[in-house]
């Protein structure tokens, strides 16, 4: 059990670092690689918990995460949004990198403070003190990424790390999601990536860019 605690702590630290990396990385391909590593960390945590807690359902969560986020999402995204999306070196964002790091540090603190009462309420759940604040941190990192990145694919990655954060926090709480939920969740993510990827491709076709943060045709006329 002690080994599992150590491993989960290490994975949580990597999960947080990969999430932070997605905020500060300027290269599109780098963002995608960090997303894959981030998803791998989620799968690894689920696997460690599956073994430590003797929960086969968490093994399924690890398997679904691997097949959907690590394998299917990059393939679907490349097919839907077009491989040329990754050729752009720089990803635009509203804030500079140092300010983004500062905001991310603030978000990490908020996550730990907010998770405090929650962790107290579920203190009987092993690993909750590690996974719940880290998951919440990833949720906030993802929301921040969606808010500050101007590039469509980077914003989509932000949405996905939000989802990973929610699952990272909840795998310590729910060890037996019903089969229907697991199947539905496995289908939901690739469909969402497919549709949003196609939307990015169409925006690129019509406007000649994928920097969705610069789209500003719609506003109130005065």
């Amino acid at each position, binding site marked *: 059990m002690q080994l599992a605690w150590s491993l989960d702590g290490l994975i949580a630290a990597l999960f947080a670092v990969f999430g932070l990396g997605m905020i500060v990385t300027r290269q599109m391909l780098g963002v995608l690689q960090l997303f894959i590593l981030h998803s791998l960390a989620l799968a690894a945590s689920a696997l460690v918990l599956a073994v430590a807690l003797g929960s086969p359902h968490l093994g399924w969560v690890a398997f679904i995460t691997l097949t959907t986020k690590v394998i299917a999402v990059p393939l679907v995204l490349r097919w839907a949004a077009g491989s040329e999306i990754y050729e752009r070196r720089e990803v635009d964002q509203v804030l500079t990198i140092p300010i983004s790091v500062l905001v991310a540090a603030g978000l990490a603190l908020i996550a730990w403070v*907010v998770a405090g*009462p*929650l962790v*107290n*309420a*579920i203190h009987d759940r092993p690993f909750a003190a590690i996974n719940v604040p880290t*998951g*919440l941190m990833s*949720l906030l990192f*993802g*929301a921040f990424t*969606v808010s500050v990145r101007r590039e*469509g694919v980077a*914003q989509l990655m*932000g*949405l996905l790390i*939000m*989802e990973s*954060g*929610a*699952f990272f*926090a*909840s795998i310590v*709480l*729910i060890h*037996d*999601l*019903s089969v*229907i*939920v697991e199947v*539905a*969740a496995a289908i*939901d993510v690739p*469909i*969402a990536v497919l*549709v*949003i990827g*196609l*939307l990015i491709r*169409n*925006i690129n076709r*019509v*406007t000649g860019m994928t920097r*969705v943060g610069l*789209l*500003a*045709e*719609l506003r*109130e*006329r*005065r």
Partner: protein
Amino acid sequence: MVLALILLVPLAASLLALGNHRVAPWITLVATLIVLLLSGRAIWAVVDAGTVSALGGVLTLDPLAALYLGLVAFVGFTAALYSVGYLAARRAGQTEGDSTPRYRQYHPLFNVFLASMLAVPLAANLAVVWIAIELTTIFSAFLVAYEDSAEALEAAWKYVALTSMGAMIALLGVLLLYFGITNAGQAPTWAGLGLAAPGMAPAILVTSFVLWLVGFGAKAGLVPMHTWLPDAHSQAPASICAVLSGVETSGALYMLLRIYPSLSANPGIVNPQGWYLVVGLVTVATASLLILQVQDFKRLFAYSTIEHMGIVLAACGLGAGAHDLGATYQFFAHALTKSFCFYAAGLAVIVLGTQRIDVAGGLMKRSPLAGWSLLLGGIAIAGAPPFALFVSEFEILRTGFTAHQYLATGLLTVFIVLAFIAVMYQLGQVVFGETTDAAAAPVSPLPLTCRAALLIAAVPVLVFGVYLPPRLGELIRAAAMLMGGAP
């Protein structure tokens, strides 16, 4: 079996529509009619039995869910009927250089969009309900982007990015609640939540609620997460606006209404009404002011949707029973009235060729049907008597004053009156204003299916303010009881 068919019919229709785009509108129409009839049968059973289930409890329907199911089925049918003529008229009105609309994708997407919305009240498992809500956004993205112009794609992106971000925030809330319910030995359903809530750790329930308020609030258009709503409604076809505003945003609000009795039932949570009241009042106030300065009548109706979402939340916040019948009836009446408003707005766009208030005018002279429809929709949505929204708003305000909530109820009254004046002033310009030279072209006859959809949608708007069929009244009262904290 009926509950399962309600989901299977639109899915089958989507596949059929994908195969043959020429008959796709009629396939969609027949499918939505079947869904409406099946939903009617399911609702009838709910009024008799209280709750019905299918597929071993995977699908379930209680009165509040049945009320929402009926709204989705009705608006889905009228929108499908309206789409037949509306899309054809819009295509005929295209000029060279315009973008090519996604006509072939419209009907397959419309059907899966409808199926995902129908799954929201039907799914028993809370996590599946969340997936259904997320899929409503995903499947409707390209319906918002139907026109395939830069503006439509921008609106679709804003819609997807903001509401999906909200959905991810709400996901953590759903999973926390899932844990809280199953930890108490209950099934992760609405009924299970009702049973588990009194003994649940307040930190879990409050954190879940706050995540829902922000997450589902973005989808419901609550201020300050409302910015996607006017953009999406200004670009989407009127038939999609009717569904988005009438029932999709209400789906997110439905989630916030369903968690309300659980918050009230937990003795460790102090004043849960305060959250609803503050967010509701801020939303109503902002929307009322924005309606006053808006320059596009489809955006006007979108802001009106934001206002009504706020009124329902504020009604919950007023407590003292205002959340019972008033909020439930407001939820019900808004969906029916707002879909009618967008059908009328769509006809006005066909007649005038614009949706800009400052250049539109003389609608009544150019097309009395479109003019009267827009006027009727405006009066009804603004909450004037004898329409259904007047009844619900009057009930909410009456209960608020009776409960001595003078400041909050007074503010709500001021904002509702302000919105009423703003809606009437703005639509008055479109209906009775001067006709511009640009709008002097002859008007071709309005599509038959649009007129039929408008007529069908007008019936509940005109009737339910003065008469409510007894069984429907029973359903609304039973739904209100669920919101009042009954197990």
